[in-house]
Protein backbone atom coordinates (compact mmCIF):
# COMPACT_ATOMS: atom_id res chain seq x y z
CA UNK A 1 0.00 0.00 0.00
CA UNK A 2 2.75 2.44 1.03
CA UNK A 3 4.81 1.36 -1.93
CA UNK A 4 1.91 2.02 -4.28
CA UNK A 5 1.43 5.50 -2.81
CA UNK A 6 5.09 6.39 -3.32
CA UNK A 7 4.89 5.08 -6.84
CA UNK A 8 1.91 7.36 -7.59
CA UNK A 9 3.72 10.36 -6.10
CA UNK A 10 6.72 9.59 -8.27
CA UNK A 11 4.64 9.28 -11.45
CA UNK A 12 2.79 12.54 -10.70
CA UNK A 13 6.13 14.27 -10.09
CA UNK A 14 7.44 13.06 -13.44
CA UNK A 15 4.23 14.05 -15.22
CA UNK A 16 4.17 17.62 -13.88
CA UNK A 17 7.65 18.08 -15.33
CA UNK A 18 5.89 18.07 -18.71
CA UNK A 19 3.89 21.21 -17.88
CA UNK A 20 5.51 24.07 -19.75
CA UNK A 21 7.05 26.35 -17.08
CA UNK A 22 7.33 29.55 -19.06
CA UNK A 23 10.09 31.14 -16.98
CA UNK A 24 10.39 34.83 -17.94
CA UNK A 25 13.36 35.64 -20.20
CA UNK A 26 16.51 37.01 -18.63
CA UNK A 27 18.49 39.90 -20.15
CA UNK A 28 21.45 41.81 -18.76
CA UNK A 29 21.42 44.37 -21.54
CA UNK A 30 18.76 46.90 -20.54
CA UNK A 31 19.45 50.41 -21.82
CA UNK A 32 16.41 51.88 -20.01
CA UNK A 33 17.40 50.47 -16.62
CA UNK A 34 17.01 52.63 -13.48
CA UNK A 35 20.52 52.13 -12.11
CA UNK A 36 22.28 52.43 -15.49
CA UNK A 37 20.58 55.77 -16.22
CA UNK A 38 20.83 57.31 -12.74
CA UNK A 39 24.47 57.19 -11.73
CA UNK A 40 23.76 59.42 -8.74
CA UNK A 41 21.82 56.73 -6.87
CA UNK A 42 23.89 56.02 -3.72
CA UNK A 43 25.85 52.79 -3.65
CA UNK A 44 24.06 51.36 -0.61
CA UNK A 45 20.72 51.85 -2.39
CA UNK A 46 22.01 50.16 -5.54
CA UNK A 47 23.26 47.20 -3.50
CA UNK A 48 19.89 46.73 -1.78
CA UNK A 49 17.93 47.09 -5.04
CA UNK A 50 20.09 44.51 -6.79
CA UNK A 51 20.17 42.17 -3.81
CA UNK A 52 16.53 42.32 -2.68
CA UNK A 53 14.43 43.56 -5.60
CA UNK A 54 16.04 42.89 -8.99
CA UNK A 55 15.38 39.13 -9.09
CA UNK A 56 11.66 39.81 -9.63
CA UNK A 57 11.48 43.51 -10.55
CA UNK A 58 13.92 43.55 -13.47
CA UNK A 59 14.92 41.47 -16.48
CA UNK A 60 18.05 40.44 -14.54
CA UNK A 61 16.58 37.46 -12.66
CA UNK A 62 19.03 34.94 -11.26
CA UNK A 63 17.29 31.59 -11.35
CA UNK A 64 18.09 28.95 -8.72
CA UNK A 65 18.50 25.30 -9.83
CA UNK A 66 14.94 24.42 -8.73
CA UNK A 67 13.56 27.00 -11.17
CA UNK A 68 13.83 24.27 -13.78
CA UNK A 69 11.82 21.70 -11.83
CA UNK A 70 8.04 21.64 -11.37
CA UNK A 71 6.19 22.59 -9.25
CA UNK A 72 8.69 25.22 -7.95
CA UNK A 73 9.25 26.46 -11.51
CA UNK A 74 5.55 27.28 -11.84
CA UNK A 75 5.54 29.36 -8.64
CA UNK A 76 8.71 31.19 -9.62
CA UNK A 77 7.42 31.93 -13.12
CA UNK A 78 4.14 33.27 -11.74
CA UNK A 79 5.77 35.51 -9.12
CA UNK A 80 8.37 36.95 -11.47
CA UNK A 81 5.80 37.62 -14.20
CA UNK A 82 3.61 39.42 -11.68
CA UNK A 83 6.56 41.32 -10.21
CA UNK A 84 7.78 42.55 -13.58
CA UNK A 85 4.26 43.51 -14.67
CA UNK A 86 3.84 45.71 -11.58
CA UNK A 87 7.30 47.25 -11.64
CA UNK A 88 10.25 46.50 -13.89
CA UNK A 89 13.38 48.53 -13.13
CA UNK A 90 14.81 47.46 -16.52
CA UNK A 91 12.13 49.64 -18.19
CA UNK A 92 12.35 52.55 -15.75
CA UNK A 93 13.16 55.29 -18.26
CA UNK A 94 10.06 54.43 -20.31
CA UNK A 95 7.79 55.42 -17.42
CA UNK A 96 6.16 58.86 -17.35
CA UNK A 97 6.81 61.25 -14.49
CA UNK A 98 3.54 60.35 -12.73
CA UNK A 99 4.17 56.63 -13.19
CA UNK A 100 7.61 57.04 -11.62
CA UNK A 101 6.12 59.02 -8.70
CA UNK A 102 3.48 56.31 -8.24
CA UNK A 103 6.08 53.52 -8.32
CA UNK A 104 8.35 55.30 -5.84
CA UNK A 105 5.44 55.88 -3.46
CA UNK A 106 4.48 52.23 -3.85
CA UNK A 107 8.07 51.15 -3.08
CA UNK A 108 8.18 53.26 0.07
CA UNK A 109 4.79 51.92 1.26
CA UNK A 110 5.50 48.27 0.40
CA UNK A 111 8.73 48.36 2.42
CA UNK A 112 7.08 50.24 5.32
CA UNK A 113 4.27 47.71 5.73
CA UNK A 114 6.63 44.74 5.11
CA UNK A 115 4.87 43.53 1.97
CA UNK A 116 8.16 43.53 0.11
CA UNK A 117 10.44 41.68 -0.31
CA UNK A 118 7.96 38.79 -0.20
CA UNK A 119 8.28 36.42 2.76
CA UNK A 120 8.44 33.33 0.54
CA UNK A 121 11.43 34.88 -1.26
CA UNK A 122 13.40 35.94 1.83
CA UNK A 123 12.71 32.55 3.44
CA UNK A 124 15.10 31.02 0.91
CA UNK A 125 17.16 34.09 -0.04
CA UNK A 126 18.08 35.02 3.53
CA UNK A 127 20.43 37.83 2.53
CA UNK A 128 17.62 39.55 0.59
CA UNK A 129 15.69 40.25 3.82
CA UNK A 130 15.96 43.90 4.89
CA UNK A 131 16.87 45.01 8.41
CA UNK A 132 15.45 48.28 9.77
CA UNK A 133 18.44 50.35 8.62
CA UNK A 134 18.22 48.98 5.10
CA UNK A 135 14.47 49.62 5.01
CA UNK A 136 15.07 53.22 6.03
CA UNK A 137 17.74 53.62 3.32
CA UNK A 138 15.31 52.53 0.60
CA UNK A 139 12.32 54.47 1.96
CA UNK A 140 14.14 57.78 2.25
CA UNK A 141 15.85 57.29 -1.12
CA UNK A 142 12.47 56.59 -2.82
CA UNK A 143 10.93 59.70 -1.27
CA UNK A 144 13.85 61.99 -2.15
CA UNK A 145 14.16 60.58 -5.66
CA UNK A 146 10.46 61.27 -6.23
CA UNK A 147 10.65 64.89 -5.02
CA UNK A 148 13.63 65.50 -7.30
CA UNK A 149 11.46 64.61 -10.31
CA UNK A 150 9.32 67.66 -9.47
CA UNK A 151 12.08 70.21 -8.85
Amino acid at each position, binding site marked *: MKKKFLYIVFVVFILIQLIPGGLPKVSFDNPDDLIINNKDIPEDVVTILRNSCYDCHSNESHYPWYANISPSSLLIARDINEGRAKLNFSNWENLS*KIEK*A*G*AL*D*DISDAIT*VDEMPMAIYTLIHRNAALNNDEKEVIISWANEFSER*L*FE
Partner: protein
Amino acid sequence: MKNLFLVFTISAISLTILSFTIKNNSKALSSNTDVTVYEVPADVQEIIDNSCYGCHNTDSKSTKSKMKLNFDDMSNLKQGKLVGKLHRIYNAVNDVDMPPKKFIDKYPDKELSASDTETLKSWANNLMNKNGGL
Protein backbone atom coordinates in the same frame (compact mmCIF):
# COMPACT_ATOMS: atom_id res chain seq x y z
CA MET B 1 4.69 119.20 -28.99
CA LYS B 2 1.41 118.37 -27.28
CA ASN B 3 1.17 115.20 -29.41
CA LEU B 4 4.67 114.12 -28.50
CA PHE B 5 3.81 114.50 -24.80
CA LEU B 6 0.65 112.42 -25.30
CA VAL B 7 2.56 109.65 -27.08
CA PHE B 8 5.18 109.66 -24.34
CA THR B 9 2.57 109.44 -21.57
CA ILE B 10 0.65 106.64 -23.27
CA SER B 11 3.79 104.58 -23.88
CA ALA B 12 4.92 105.09 -20.31
CA ILE B 13 1.57 103.92 -18.95
CA SER B 14 1.39 100.90 -21.27
CA LEU B 15 4.97 99.92 -20.44
CA THR B 16 4.19 100.03 -16.73
CA ILE B 17 1.08 97.90 -17.19
CA LEU B 18 2.99 95.48 -19.42
CA SER B 19 5.83 95.07 -16.94
CA PHE B 20 3.28 94.36 -14.21
CA THR B 21 1.52 91.69 -16.23
CA ILE B 22 4.80 90.00 -17.12
CA LYS B 23 5.90 90.03 -13.51
CA ASN B 24 2.57 88.62 -12.35
CA ASN B 25 2.60 86.00 -15.06
CA SER B 26 6.02 84.68 -14.15
CA LYS B 27 4.98 84.65 -10.51
CA ALA B 28 1.84 82.68 -11.32
CA LEU B 29 3.84 80.23 -13.43
CA SER B 30 6.48 79.58 -10.81
CA SER B 31 3.97 79.20 -7.98
CA ASN B 32 2.12 76.69 -10.14
CA THR B 33 5.04 74.27 -10.09
CA ASP B 34 6.62 75.08 -6.73
CA VAL B 35 3.62 75.02 -4.44
CA THR B 36 1.67 71.88 -3.78
CA VAL B 37 -1.99 72.13 -4.81
CA TYR B 38 -4.51 69.95 -3.00
CA GLU B 39 -8.17 70.81 -3.44
CA VAL B 40 -11.18 68.56 -2.91
CA PRO B 41 -14.46 69.79 -4.45
CA ALA B 42 -17.69 68.91 -2.63
CA ASP B 43 -18.75 66.16 -5.06
CA VAL B 44 -15.36 64.43 -4.73
CA GLN B 45 -15.39 64.82 -0.96
CA GLU B 46 -18.77 63.12 -0.83
CA ILE B 47 -17.49 60.10 -2.78
CA ILE B 48 -14.34 59.88 -0.64
CA ASP B 49 -16.39 60.11 2.56
CA ASN B 50 -18.73 57.38 1.41
CA SER B 51 -16.30 54.88 -0.13
CA CYS B 52 -12.72 55.57 1.00
CA TYR B 53 -12.42 57.61 4.18
CA GLY B 54 -13.68 54.86 6.49
CA CYS B 55 -10.32 53.04 6.21
CA HIS B 56 -8.02 55.79 4.92
CA ASN B 57 -8.02 58.22 7.85
CA THR B 58 -5.77 58.97 10.83
CA ASP B 59 -7.92 57.04 13.33
CA SER B 60 -8.48 54.04 11.09
CA LYS B 61 -8.28 50.63 12.74
CA SER B 62 -6.49 49.29 9.68
CA THR B 63 -2.84 50.30 10.14
CA LYS B 64 -1.92 49.18 6.64
CA SER B 65 -4.71 51.19 4.98
CA LYS B 66 -3.85 54.42 6.71
CA MET B 67 -0.10 53.97 6.23
CA LYS B 68 -0.59 53.64 2.50
CA LEU B 69 -3.16 56.39 2.10
CA ASN B 70 -4.41 58.85 4.69
CA PHE B 71 -6.79 61.54 3.42
CA ASP B 72 -6.18 63.59 6.59
CA ASP B 73 -2.52 63.89 5.64
CA MET B 74 -2.78 64.56 1.90
CA SER B 75 -2.48 68.35 2.19
CA ASN B 76 0.85 67.98 4.05
CA LEU B 77 2.56 65.96 1.32
CA LYS B 78 5.23 67.29 -1.00
CA GLN B 79 4.55 67.26 -4.73
CA GLY B 80 6.34 64.01 -5.59
CA LYS B 81 4.62 62.09 -2.82
CA LEU B 82 1.22 63.65 -3.54
CA VAL B 83 1.37 62.91 -7.27
CA GLY B 84 2.47 59.36 -6.42
CA LYS B 85 -0.57 58.87 -4.16
CA LEU B 86 -2.92 60.43 -6.74
CA HIS B 87 -1.59 58.17 -9.46
CA ARG B 88 -2.16 55.13 -7.27
CA ILE B 89 -5.69 56.31 -6.39
CA TYR B 90 -6.35 56.70 -10.12
CA ASN B 91 -5.13 53.16 -10.84
CA ALA B 92 -6.87 51.60 -7.83
CA VAL B 93 -10.31 52.88 -8.84
CA ASN B 94 -9.69 52.42 -12.56
CA ASP B 95 -8.73 48.74 -12.05
CA VAL B 96 -11.59 48.30 -9.51
CA ASP B 97 -9.01 47.21 -6.88
CA MET B 98 -10.55 49.67 -4.42
CA PRO B 99 -12.72 49.57 -2.39
CA PRO B 100 -11.79 45.91 -1.70
CA LYS B 101 -14.27 43.29 -2.92
CA LYS B 102 -14.76 41.84 0.57
CA PHE B 103 -15.67 45.28 1.88
CA ILE B 104 -18.19 45.82 -0.93
CA ASP B 105 -19.77 42.41 -0.28
CA LYS B 106 -20.43 43.55 3.27
CA TYR B 107 -21.40 47.16 2.46
CA PRO B 108 -22.82 47.20 -1.10
CA ASP B 109 -23.79 50.89 -0.84
CA LYS B 110 -20.09 51.83 -0.62
CA GLU B 111 -19.41 50.61 -4.12
CA LEU B 112 -18.24 53.23 -6.61
CA SER B 113 -20.67 53.83 -9.45
CA ALA B 114 -19.29 54.35 -12.95
CA SER B 115 -19.77 58.09 -12.58
CA ASP B 116 -18.11 58.10 -9.13
CA THR B 117 -15.09 56.40 -10.68
CA GLU B 118 -14.94 58.96 -13.48
CA THR B 119 -15.25 61.85 -11.01
CA LEU B 120 -12.37 60.51 -8.89
CA LYS B 121 -10.22 59.86 -11.96
CA SER B 122 -10.61 63.33 -13.42
CA TRP B 123 -10.06 64.88 -9.98
CA ALA B 124 -6.81 62.93 -9.58
CA ASN B 125 -5.74 63.75 -13.14
CA ASN B 126 -6.42 67.45 -12.70
CA LEU B 127 -4.45 67.61 -9.43
CA MET B 128 -1.54 65.65 -10.91
CA ASN B 129 -1.33 68.20 -13.72
CA LYS B 130 -1.57 71.16 -11.34
CA ASN B 131 1.33 69.70 -9.38
CA GLY B 132 3.62 69.44 -12.36
CA GLY B 133 2.95 65.81 -13.19
CA LEU B 134 2.69 66.35 -16.95
